[in-house]
Structure formats: structure tokens, C-alpha cells
């Protein structure tokens, strides 16, 4: 009789990998972004839209009111960066969620059923894949006009592809695994198999794709705003701030440096976290 003790994996060791310095840095960056975005009106020292032409282009000051300086019309940079985090975060999360849902659903349907549904979905995917990502986003914005929702659609139109590809590949290999065959022999329908057996097993790798998609979305949003195709110019964004700074780069370096640094640190942090998650979940890396 099997009365041998069961080796229970403790909860602490399961999530201990999140305490690695790389992961911790990533979590810290995402945490700071969320706090800044959620409590922007409380944290920001100034109204981000308030112009003060008398204080235009004030350099960063350690003791004065404008800690990171002001821009060409005297708006406080720190306040604009804090409010800009809102847009970055909102767009990044929305893009990750929408493209994730679309990519995963299409991917597992494609991989699980195979044959004609698969080739149909893959043809559809290849059409999107054929456009350079930024060009497609520009085309969508140019066609539909500016706005937060349209930027999200424009960015999500490309970001679902990596989810779909990976979800399809994993669903294809899971489809013939014995536990799925076991479920079919019990009489489980396709919906049940997809929901109970395929989806939970691909979620870890989707989490990895999600972190990288988030980083790319932040950069792409900044790029769109820099080109003047992002959200309306009245809303402060990091990319928009960079675009404003371009004309003054020789005289006011701080206008370009601080928004640029924010983009850099956020994307670096998310990528590092993604790296850690990938080594943790990638089945090819067995050292865990």
C-alpha cells in the first residue's frame, strides 16, 4: 500500500525565483509605474497642462519647485512624466490583454483542430505578419483617426501574432498528449478539453510572451506619439514629450533625457522580468 509520504512543494520555493535581482528590478519598475499611474493627481506637484511661460525651460533644480525642470512652455516635467506613466501603463495593459485574448484563442483553436481551420487562421496571420509593425500601426491611425482606443487597436493588431504562433505550437503538441487522449476517452468535448487541459498548460508561456509584448507596446506607443500619431497632444505621454524635446535638444537636454530614461528603465525592467519568467517556464531549460 502506498503510504509513502508525499513530497509537498512548499509555496515559498515555488515563487522564490521572483526574488532574483533581475526579477526584483522588473517588479519594482512595474510597481512604480502602477503607483505613478494610479495616484498621479496626488503625487504630481503641478498640473501637467499648466503653462508658465516665465519659467519656461528651467533646468533641473534640486531645491526649486521644478525638480526635473520645465519644457518650452513652462510645464513641469516631473508632473508630465507621472501623468505620462498613466497613458503608457493603460495602453500597455490594454494591448497585452486584448492581443493576448485574441492570440491565445486563435492559437489554441488553430493548433488543436488543425487541418482547414488551422490553415485559414494561419493565412489570416500571415497577412498581418507581412506588414512592418509600425507601418501597419501608422496606417490604422491614419485611417481611423487619433484617439486612445485607436492607438490600442493599432498596436494590438500586431501584438497578437506571437501569442498565436506559440499557443498554436503548444496546443499541437498537447493535443496528442496522453492526458488529453484520456479526457477524450472519458467523453470530454472540445470546449472542455480546450478550457481544462490545453489552456492551463499554455498559460505560463503566454505570461512570458505577455511581458515582452508589454515592453514592445510601451516603445511602440512612444514611437507613435513621437511621430504625432498617438493619443491627442493634450494628453501628456512619454513619446509626445520626446517629440516636443526634439527642437530644443541642443539647449535643454533635460527635456529629452528624463522621458527617454523613463522609457528605457521601464522597458528594461519588464524585459528582465520576462527573461526570468522565460527561464523559469521554458520546458527546454530544465534547471529548475
Amino acid at each position, binding site marked *: 500500500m*502506498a503510504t*509513502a509520504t508525499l513530497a509537498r*512543494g512548499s509555496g515559498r520555493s515555488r515563487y522564490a525565483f521572483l526574488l532574483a535581482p533581475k526579477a526584483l528590478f522588473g517588479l519594482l519598475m512595474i510597481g512604480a509605474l502602477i503607483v505613478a499611474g494610479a495616484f498621479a493627481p496626488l503625487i504630481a506637484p503641478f498640473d501637467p497642462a499648466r503653462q508658465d511661460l516665465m519659467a519656461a525651460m528651467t533646468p533641473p533644480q534640486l531645491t526649486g519647485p521644478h525638480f526635473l525642470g520645465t519644457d518650452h512652455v513652462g510645464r513641469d516635467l516631473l508632473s508630465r512624466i507621472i501623468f505620462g506613466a498613466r497613458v503608457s501603463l493603460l495602453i500597455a495593459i490594454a494591448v497585452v490583454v486584448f492581443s493576448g485574448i485574441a492570440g491565445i484563442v486563435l492559437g489554441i483553436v488553430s493548433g488543436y483542430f488543425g487541418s482547414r481551420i488551422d490553415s485559414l487562421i494561419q493565412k489570416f496571420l500571415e497577412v498581418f505578419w507581412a506588414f512592418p509593425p509600425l507601418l501597419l500601426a501608422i496606417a490604422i491611425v491614419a485611417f481611423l483617426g487619433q484617439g486612445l482606443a485607436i492607438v490600442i487597436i493599432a498596436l494590438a493588431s500586431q501584438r497578437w501574432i506571437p501569442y498565436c504562433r506559440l499557443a498554436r505550437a503548444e496546443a499541437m503538441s498537447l493535443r496528442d498528449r*496522453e*492526458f488529453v487522449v484520456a479526457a477524450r476517452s472519458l*467523453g*470530454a468535448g472540445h470546449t472542455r478539453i480546450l478550457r*481544462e*487541459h490545453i489552456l492551463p*498548460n499554455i498559460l505560463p508561456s503566454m505570461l512570458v510572451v505577455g511581458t515582452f509584448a508589454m515592453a514592445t507596446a510601451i516603445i511602440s506607443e512612444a514611437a507613435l506619439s513621437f511621430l504625432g500619431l498617438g493619443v491627442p497632444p493634450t494628453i501628456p505621454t512619454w513619446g509626445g514629450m520626446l517629440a516636443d524635446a526634439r527642437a530644443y535638444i541642443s539647449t535643454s537636454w533635460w527635456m529629452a533625457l528624463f522621458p527617454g530614461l523613463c522609457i528605457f528603465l521601464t522597458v528594461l525592467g519588464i524585459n528582465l522580468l520576462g527573461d526570468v519568467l522565460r527561464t523559469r517556464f521554458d520546458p527546454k531549460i530544465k534547471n529548475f
Partner: protein
Amino acid sequence: MTVCDRNIANVAATGTLLSVSGLRVSFPGTDTPAVRDVSLRVGRGEVVALVGESGSGKSVTVKALMRLIEFGGGRVTAGRAWLSDGQGGRIDLFAQSEAAMQQIRGNRIAMIFQEPMTSLNPVLTVGFQLREAVQRHQNVARSEADRICLEALKQVRLSEPERRLRQYPHELSGGMRQRLMIAMALACKPDLLIADEPTTALDVTVQAEILALLKMIQRETGMAILFITHDMGVVAEIADRVQVMLRGEVIEDGLVHAVFAAPRHAYTRALLDAAPKLGNAPPATPRPVTDATPALSVQNLIVRYPLSGGVFGRVRANVHAVEDVSFDVAHGETLALVGESGCGKSSLAKAILRLYEPAEGRILLNGEDILGFDHARMMLARRGIQMIFQDPYASLNPRKCVADIIAEPLEIHRTGGRTEIAARVATLIERVGLPASAAHCFPHEFSGGQRQRVCIARALALNPSVIIADEPVSALDVSIQAQILDLIEEVQEEFNVAILFISHDMAVVEKVADRIAVMYQGELIEIGPRDAMLRMPAHPYTKRLLDAVPIAHPDQRRDRQLTAREISSPIRAVGAESAAFTMTEIAPGHFLRCSRDM
């Protein structure tokens, strides 16, 4: 430790090829070393078997000797390994540079592995890979290398060696691939061949051929073999000396006859008792037939897989997986279905479960033909027929806890409310001998045997009348096998369920079966009561199958004839029908199919 002392004393003795003392291997991040104080001695021309169950450290030991353990993250933290250099001196394997080790691997010590398919590169021809192995170690011209390759293939008795050189690994059968691996290992005439479970993945008849081949080559070349296995039957067949490992330590070391006659350690005794032995079971007591309708009746079943090709994907040919198979299984009875891999056993199981639609035939479950059922009636019928799979690691969803896994059939068939299902799950967990705390554990927290218990609980959940068990114990260690077989027999009695027990292991079959059916190339060639089938097999293939089973005693070794036999392909042209051979009753309940092979 006496075992240790004696080995060290023997190191200086003449004829020692390899001697290891005090070997300790650790992996970073673990407290206990994987291998502790292991001492080993292999004499020239000696066959030493290293025996133990999975996780006992036997593979780690040989990987440490080949210094391959470093690639896996392990480290040799203590011990010496001396390899005789053939001129009276010896070299310490653990002190060699990587470059020197590359010269030793292949040239002096060669290795063959369990799974010959994964050890071969699928995109290169057999000849290319063989020649590469030769040229890496011997400075010879291409034509000379080709000659050596051809000779090596002839040495391992591969049929048509010239043609084999131009073929790719997937064109060869498992046994042929393992012969090829042996040829590759032999090409450089090593002093020591390390064979890591070389026959575990092979069918029993092929295993017998490979063992005979190894023995013959060993006699011809005087090479020493270090043979790693978990199977005492194989040890009895081939070894001169045995070392038994348990949890990283050598616990028994002696000549094969002495160890089998009088094992010193309790664990060795347990291993020997658990070793499959044919002909030890008590005579079968015939089960009283309680009803006229069999639980499962398969009639003239034919399963074919279409092979399409060409531009338009037309069906070019059919794989004839199951050909005109008929049998009955009564309530409470176990019918064992025996045959080699590729004989159609699993296709038959899939067809019975309607996971793959058969081309022709009838499948009667409790007297009703399920092949004609629509979706709703088939859902009901599925309650009556359940399956236990071979690999308990693969057949459980790694992301579900045990309670959810066992509850799944109950939820699919909506057998009751949440509390009813929970109560049923708790009963089942207890019935298969798992602790109640197991309910909230995930599959990876269990051992192989415990996982198979979970699979049995899942199969029992709906009170089925038929269970198909596809090699349910072949992935388990021998000591666990016996426990799982006992459990299957217990629940069979309790639930009065008919079991179709698919297996390639005759000793396991003898233990569980009431009747035995033998399949060969898709056809059922012989079926009959267990004792009749084992004592008086009528078909030549059944005889060969029984002959190939290793006998777990070194005094009963048989000299086997090596024949390079051809296997006819199951792929036939569209429209081809198999010649109809009828089953003849040669004794009460004992049927035989007369065919061209006889």
C-alpha cells in the same frame, strides 16, 4: 565496508581493466550526493551488470566514469577511476584533460544508450554517422573507413549491410537501430563497452536477439561490458558478475551464480523475488461464467490508417493496423492481449474506445453495438468503458490536482452534485490506497506507482463494465509493478469489471490473465486459456515470444540462434484484402489462426 575493501585489494590484480574506488558524485543544490562510496571493478573480457531501480545512481556512476556528468551539472567530489592502458600501466580517468578524455571515449570506452532513435541524428544517413564515428577516432582514409563500417555492420548481423549504409535512421526498426548503435560503438574496437539499459525500449524478442548478439561479440573480441539494467532476468542472461545499487550505494557485489543462489542483502532478495518469472503462477482456477452476454465483444474488427500522398492528397495506400480481429471478454475476466510494438494492440484499444473509427466490424458493449451509436448514446456508453494508460506521467494533466483529475469523469457525465462527487472522489482515493491528503496534491508530487493509482481511481469512477489497460505497469519499477497488479486484481473482483490487459511482458501477463490473445502484424493469431497458451503454445510466433522471455536464473541460460529476420510491411495498396484465414479450435477454448507463416 567489506565490499569496498575487497575491490581495492583487487585493483592490483592482473586482468583488471577498470577499477573505481570511493566514487562520490554530487549535484549542486542538493544536500545528499547522488552516488556515495561506489567501488567497481571490471576485468578484461568480463560482463559486469550494474543493477538498480530508477534513481539508484547507476546511470550517474557511468556518466561520471565517462566524465559526461560535468555536462549535466554534476561533480565528482571524491574517488579514483583507474583504466588500464594495456601495457601494464594505468591512468586516472578523473585526472585527464578534456582533450585526453575525447581520445578515451569511443576509442577505449564506448557507450550505447537505452533509446537508439534519440541517439541517432535523423537527418544524416546511417553510413555518414558510422563513418564519422570511425574517422573521429582513427586516422584513416574514406575508403578504409567505409570498409571498417561495413565490417562492423556485418559483425552485428544486420541484413543487407551495403543498403543500410545509405538509409536514414527512421527507415530502420528499433532492433536494427540498436544493432547500429552497437556497430558504431564497436567500430573503434574499444576495451570496454558501457551499455545503459540497451534493451529496455525493445520488444522481448528483439531484446533476446540483442543480448545474444552482445554475448557473441563479447566472446569474439574479448571486450569487457558494463551492463546497466533494472531487470534481473537480463542480468541472469548475460552477466558474469553483479553489483546491486540502492540509493547511490553499492549494496551487493558478487559473481552472478552466487548472488542468485544466496543474495546477502535484503534488497537484492526483494529484487530477485520481484523479477518476472514465467511458469511460477499457480494453475488458473476457471471463473464461473455468470451470464451469457460478454461485457465486451469485438467482432471482425478492421482498422486502417490511410496514407495520402501526391499533389492532390489522394489516398495512396492503407496501413493495415488491425485485421479481422474477434474476441469476447466476460464480466470479471481478464483477457491479456500480447504482441510486439507495432502489432496493432494500441490501434485496437483506440478503436474500441472510438478514439479512432474502425473501417469495419462490430464492437458490442454489454450486447449493444456501440459503433452505430450517435453522440448522445455514445456518451452514455463511454461510462461503461474506461482506459488506464501506459505512462502515468503523461496521462495526468500536470496542472490539475488529484481530486480534480478523479472528479473529471464524474463532472463530464454529470453524475451528481458537488458534495456527491467529492464524497465519491474521497472513497476512490482511499480505495486505491492513497492517503486522503493526496486529494490536493499535483501529479508531480507523486511517484510513478502512486500516479498509476490515481489513473486507476479515475478509471473506476464511473463503475465501468470494461477497463482497457494499455501496458499499465511497463513504465514502473519491478517492486512497484507487483503492487499495482495486485491492486488491479483487487478492484476487478470488487467491481466485477472485465479487463482487456495489453502487454508485451509475458511474466506480467501470466500473473493477471485468465485468457491470453496473441497479436502479430494486426492479426489475432492465437487465443486461449492462460495455462494452455503458456504450456502448449501452438503458433510458431507464440512459441518464439515465450522463448524470448529472459529466465531469471543464470543456470538456465539458453543459447539463442541469431537470425536476421525480415518484417513484412503492414502498408498495402488501396483495395488490398488480407487473405481470410479462419480460426481453428485446437482444444476447448483454444483457437489458432493458420497462416502463411506456419
